[in-house]
Each structure stands twice: as C-alpha cells, then as structure tokens.
C-alpha cells in the first residue's frame, strides 16, 4: 500500500500522549489525548491528518517536533526522525532540530507574526539562527520562495510589516518562513482554515507547488477532508485520539472502509428541493447602511425578498456585509436609507421603537453558541425566558413547554437543569435553536450557525433546521460563507460582494451558468471531495484567462 522503498523520514510508533485535567471540585485525573497511533512519512510525501476537534491531530503534528502543549506529556511510544528517537531528547538536541529538520506553519498567521518586525527578518530568522546560510543567501532564498508562493512583488515583499499584507499573503509568508531553512519536514496546522474560500484556493495551490518544488515532506493537519484530498499522498483519519483509518488518499476518498470515514466522505450530501414562492415574509428594499462615525457604506442599495417558510441564503466572503445585513434587519444597526417590510408591517429602523410582536417574530441564532448563552443560566432558564417574556408562561406550564421544545431539538428532558458548560458544541447550538423557536417566530436569522461545528455535527444541525422548517413553517435567513451548506439548505440565494448583492435568485438559477465573474470565482473555489479537483480548477481558470 505505502511505498516502502524510500526510507522513512518520520516514523511514529505506538505514540501515547497524556495530560492531566483538573475538573472543578474533583481530584485531578489523567486523560489520554493520543492512544497507540503509528504513522510514517517518507521523503517528499505529504501525510494528511484529519479528524474533528479533539481528535488529537494537532497534538500528533506537534509531536513530530517532540513538542507537547501545556500540560500534555509525550508519555509513550517512539518518534523516529531521520532514524533517531526524539521523544525524550534533551532541550539542547531539540533546539538543534526544531527549525532545522522540522518546521511548523500555524493556523493563525496574523497571531504568529511579530507585528513590530518586517517580514523578511522573520522569514530568514531561523536560517540565520541555525547558521545554515549567510544572510545574503537566506534573503535570496526568501525572495525565491516568495516568487514560488505567488506573492506580489517578491523582491520588495519582505520589507513590509505583517499588518501591511492580507491574511492569505501572510499565510504564504509563513509557509516561506517554514521552507526557508530547507527542513526535511514541515508541519502544516490548519493553514487555510481561517481563510475565505477564494483565498484558500490560492494558498493551497502555493503550498502544493512549494512542497513539490522543494521535495520536502509534510504533515498536513485539517478538519476538511476535501482540502486534504488535494494535497496529501496518504491520509490518517483520527477520532478521539485513536486511529480510525490509514491509507492512501485515493483509497480513503474513493473506497473508505470504516463507517466513520464513510460518514466524513459523504458529509453535506443533504438533498433539498426548492420550495415554491409564496407571499414574502420579509422584504428588504434598497437598504443602505453605515457604522456610526464612519463615512463608508457597508451595505449599498441591498434588495432581497424572502417568502414565508423558505430559506434565503446570503453568501459572501468575510467583509462582504452579510452580518451587517442581519444587524440592519434586527434593528441593531439602523439603516440610513431603505425600507424593511416584515409580515406585512413596515419595521422601524431602530430596535427601541419596535413592538413586542416584531421582536418575537424575528429571532436570531448565532455562530458561537458558547457566547450566545449566559453561562450562569440553566438550559431551562435560557429556553424558558422567551416563554415567560412573550407568552407569560409560568411554573408547570412553562416547564412542560420547555420539555416539548427539548424534544423538538432531539434532546431529552434531562437537559433542563444543565448549564451550557455541560453541553457539547452541537447540543449548545440546539439549545440556541430551541430558544429561538420558543418565541414562535416567523423568521429566524441564522448567522453562520454551523461554521464553528465539526462537519458531522453541522450536518445534524442542518437536518434539524430543515425538519423544523417543514413542521413549523418558519423562514430562515441563512448567512454563511460555506457554499456546501447553501446547496444543502437554500431555496433562494443572494451572493454579496463588497456590500452589494451581485446575484440573487432561486437556488437553481444562481447555481447555473452563465455566472458573473465573482460568483464563478466563489463557486469554483469550494473544494470538492475528489482527487485532482485543484488541478482541474486551475486548468479551467488558465484556459479562461488565456481566451481573454
């Protein structure tokens, strides 16, 4: 299965990583983060580590440099790098190999760069520190890497400060930093997760080309199977610190053996037919809005309609004005021009002058369920408050209705006295949905509600939302940057770009060519779960630009 002729650059055998947890009010106890994991990486190959949050992928990635994050211990097994066991290597030896043999690319480049130093200084720092090459050579190599990674003006790029370049460029600069000392192995820890899809594809292409050109081996950590399918030769699927499946990319994607891997591969395959139009529950007409104290319109002349019981997906990159549109509709940010009609009534622009019915019938669900619930209130209080506030329910009647709502979100009545900290991420989001439902709304604004969740959990939430729509006839305004989610749930789509709606219509219309330039770019940038997707996109983009 794996190419055994080449020697193993990195070989991890029966790795076990432990940490001590301190649950409040209990004695400290040992937790096993990674249990009995064995993998190997050969020269010039890329191993993808994939799994949900808490699967131990970053922990394994860091162990390749014999590093364990605060509190964790590399408790057992072997980590063989270039043939020697580095698991219990001393500080001096580790200092020698980190940055020379293994380098690391972090998820958040913006947080990893020193804002006070120019990029060039930071990119060549490791090479100089290890005395691998003289400064002139290091700088020349950095410029060469900048060029390979497709950065603009490679000659002068290094003289900029981190805040002067974009997030995607910064991520590529960090890749250059990792490649500059000519390491044997690079650990990429979710390098594209924090980026927009259209940026992600550029960074992916750059990373893939750089790996190929320099012949370096890599560990590529991500939670997105479609992404890892584009760059990795082999894939290790992890769950709860244990190996689920290990094989070549082709085998994992095309013929997964384990049920968990199959679920990961087939995620987001919800089939959703468009519903016919009916009377609009929400009409947004010519809305223009700006934030206080600025003279820049965040929304420009936005017009969309949403039929009762339908889902309107608002898509766009970060900064396109999607969330601002939600704030304008909810009244948190009064629009400077335009009109919002909701359930046949004209909504007043600011929150304070809206009627209780306006507030009740328009509910909102947030991206981060953690911060959307008061940590000091029980699930019962969180769901019960709207019941009490809008309908005056008290005592047993309120409790009975809370139970009913908990049933609706597919959680048992046993959750009523729990605190948010005692729930999983998916359960938290479900409670937020129940809180919105409690008000018997006509429209729920869903602001990136699945973005912070693992794919399988997100799938469950989307299915729940669809089932609730079927039963309660509630309309959704669904804000997202994830086009796979849009395909799963939308009836209508509005594509936003720089505060304007560039494309609006039914799902089939919006997703069928001919596209405008931006929608085309956006749609073609969404990674697909098949091998060679990246190459085919690049080929078709080259062809188009060649034709122009």
């Amino acid at each position, binding site marked *: 299965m794996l190419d055994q002729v080449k020697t193993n650059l990195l070989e991890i055998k029966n790795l076990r990583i432990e940490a001590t947890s301190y649950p409040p*009010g209990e004695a400290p106890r040992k937790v096993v983060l990674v249990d009995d994991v064995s993998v190997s990486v050969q020269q010039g190959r890329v191993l993808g580590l994939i799994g949900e949050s808490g699967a131990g992928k970053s922990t394994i990635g860091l162990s390749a440099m014999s590093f364990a994050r605060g509190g964790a211990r590399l408790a057992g097994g072997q980590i063989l790098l270039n043939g020697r066991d580095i698991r219990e290597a001393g500080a001096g030896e580790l200092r020698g190999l980190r940055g020379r043999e293994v380098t690391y690319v972090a998820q958040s480049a913006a947080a990893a760069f020193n804002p006070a130093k120019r990029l060039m200084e930071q990119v060549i720092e490791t090479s100089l520190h290890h005395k691998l090459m003289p400064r002139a050579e290091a700088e020349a190599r950095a410029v060469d890497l900048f060029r390979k990674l497709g950065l603009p003006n490679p000659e002068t790029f290094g003289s900029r400060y981190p805040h002067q370049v974009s997030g995607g460029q910064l991520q590529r600069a960090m890749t250059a930093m990792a490649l500059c000392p000519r390491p044997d192995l690079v650990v990429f820890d979710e390098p594209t997760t924090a980026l927009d899809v259209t940026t992600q594809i550029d960074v992916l292409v750059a990373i893939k080309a750089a790996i190929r050109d320099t012949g370096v081996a890599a560990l590529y950590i991500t939670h997105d199977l479609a992404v890892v399918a584009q760059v990795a030769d082999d894939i290790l699927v992890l769950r709860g610190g244990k190996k689920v499946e290990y094989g070549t990319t082709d085998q994992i994607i095309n013929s997964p053996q384990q049920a968990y891997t199959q679920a990961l591969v087939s995620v987001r395959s919800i089939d959703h037919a468009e519903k016919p139009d009916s009377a609009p529950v929400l009409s947004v007409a010519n809305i223009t809005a700006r934030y206080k104290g600025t003279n820049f319109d965040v929304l420009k002349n936005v017009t969309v309609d949403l039929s009762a019981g339908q889902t309107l997906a608002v898509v766009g990159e970060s900064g396109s004005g999607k969330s601002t549109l939600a704030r304008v509709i909810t009244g*948190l940010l009064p629009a400077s021009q335009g009109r919002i009609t909701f359930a046949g009534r004209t909504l007043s622009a600011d*929150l304070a002058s809206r009627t209780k019915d306006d*507030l009740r019938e328009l509910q909102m669900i947030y991206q981060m369920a953690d*911060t*959307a619930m008061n*940590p*000091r209130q029980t699930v019962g209080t969180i769901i019960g408050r709207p019941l009490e506030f809008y309908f005056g329910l008290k005592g047993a009647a309120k409790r009975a209705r809370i139970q009913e709502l908990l049933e609706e979100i597919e959680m048992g009545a046993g959750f009523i006295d729990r605190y948010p*900290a005692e729930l999983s991420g998916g359960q938290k989001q479900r409670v937020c949905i129940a809180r919105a439902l409690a*008000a018997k709304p006509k429209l729920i604004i869903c602001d990136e509600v699945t973005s912070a969740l693992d794919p399988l959990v997100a799938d469950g939430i989307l299915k729940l939302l669809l089932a609730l729509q079927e039963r309660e006839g509630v309309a959704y305004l669904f804000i997202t940057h994830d086009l796979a989610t849009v395909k799963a749930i939308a009836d209508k789509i509005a594509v936003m770009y720089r505060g304007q709606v560039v494309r609006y219509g039914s799902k089939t219309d919006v997703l069928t060519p001919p596209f405008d330039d931006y929608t085309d770019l956006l749609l073609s940038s969404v990674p697909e779960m098949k091998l060679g997707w990246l190459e085919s996109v690049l080929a078709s983009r080259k062809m188009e630009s060649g034709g122009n």
Partner: protein
Amino acid sequence: MRRIPLSALIGLILTGGFFFVAIFAQLIAPYKMDELVGGVWDPVSAAHWLGTDSIGRDLLTRMIYGAQVTIFVATCATILSFVTGSVLGFLAATAGGWLDQALSRFVDLLMAIPTLILSLVILTAVDVTTINLILVMGFLDATRVFRLSRAVAVDITVMDYVEAARLRGEGRGWIIFSEILPNALSPLVAELGLRFIFAVLFISTLSFLGLGVQPPLADWGGLVKENSAGLVYGIPAALAPAIAIAALAISVNLVADWVLSRTTSLKGGRGA
C-alpha cells in the same frame, strides 16, 4: 465537599472570630467601655489580660469595643461603595454614550486627587460623625468599584447573550441584574474583600490622625493614637490594636485571595 486550602481556612476562622467579637462586644467585654478600673498603663494581669490604657481603662474591653466600631464603619462604607459603584458602573457600561462619558470622567476627576487628602479636607468642613465618616469613605471608595464593575460589564455587554436579550426586548433592569450581574459577581466578590480591608486601614488612619471616630468611642486606629505616647517609655499598649488591624487585614486578604483564585479558572461555566 470542596477542599478549602489551609491559608483560606485560617483566614475564614480569624475573620469569623473578629466579626463574632464585634457583633457581641457588649456581652463579651469584661468591663464597661469607658470605666476607669486601674492605674495608667498597668501591666498585663489576670484581671486585665492586656493591661490598662493611658488613663486606666481596661485595654481588652477597649479593643473589643474598638473592633465593633472599626468593623461597623468599614462594613457600612464597603456596602455603600459597592452598591453605588457597581450600579453606576453597570449603568455606564450598558448605556454608553454621554452618560458613560460623564460618569467616567467625573470618577477620573475624583481619583486624580489623593483619597486621604480629599477626605481630610471634607471632614474638616463637616461634622465628624459616624454617619459622615461612612458617607465620605463609601463614596470615595465607590470610584474604585465603579472602575472595576464598568470594566467587567463592558466585556460582558458585547457578548452575544446580552445582544440576544436586547433583541428579545428585555429592559435595562433585566440585562443588568440577570445577564450581567451573575457573570460579574466573582471579580466583584473578590474586590469586596479587598475594599473592606482598605476601609479598615482608612478608618484607622483617619482616627489616628484625629479626624476619625471621636472619643469616648474609639476604633483601633484611635486606640493606637491614645496609647502611642507609651511606646517611648517601653509600654506596649499601642501594639495590641496595631496587631489587630494587621491581623484583620491579612485574614480578610487570605479569604479574598481564595475567592479570586477560585473564580479565575478559564473553565467558563458556573465558576463554582
């Protein structure tokens, strides 16, 4: 049952003891507060466990009544500073705008003047009664509480659950008392202990300077002042109240430290 660290346990026992003595001073004290029972600065004896003071009153009795006065004034001042400081702080944080600006700048103004000097000036202008002492101490200390509670509440007001409450149409009262207060309580409770200590030290300082509790009543600071002349002749009567002040400050501090360390866990949740 949660394990209480030794230091916190010592702090709790000592603090509890001081408060017990203060509350039941009239029952515990062996003599009357201003009764002359012996000579000037009599040494320690079976009848007078701490000896007598500068005019022949029983020092232990004076100390017990002193505890009552000190703790009463400090407690009242702390409660006053907390109620005004936190209510105004939360109000400023949730209302924002000009109200926040006006309150915050006014507090900056007050804090720019050293508290001791400002209170000495005020106390020379008004009658030095217990009520006035409490008012002056409470309001001046409220500036500190305002700063803290506003800072804590500003962090909480931007949370999505506060926005959700606002979108639901909740009034400011609900937002302050049900959404913000429970989440701001831990740092405020820890601050409560510290402010109490500062109040004890402050009233002692004022009394030592002669602008605090007036004779024949005396708090610990006043007792130090009355007996300080004896130190020159090697008579240790002034040390007893001084030690009591230090002991109370340290024991409350131990408790406050424990509360603070318990609540700064990054676990979220109830912080319990």
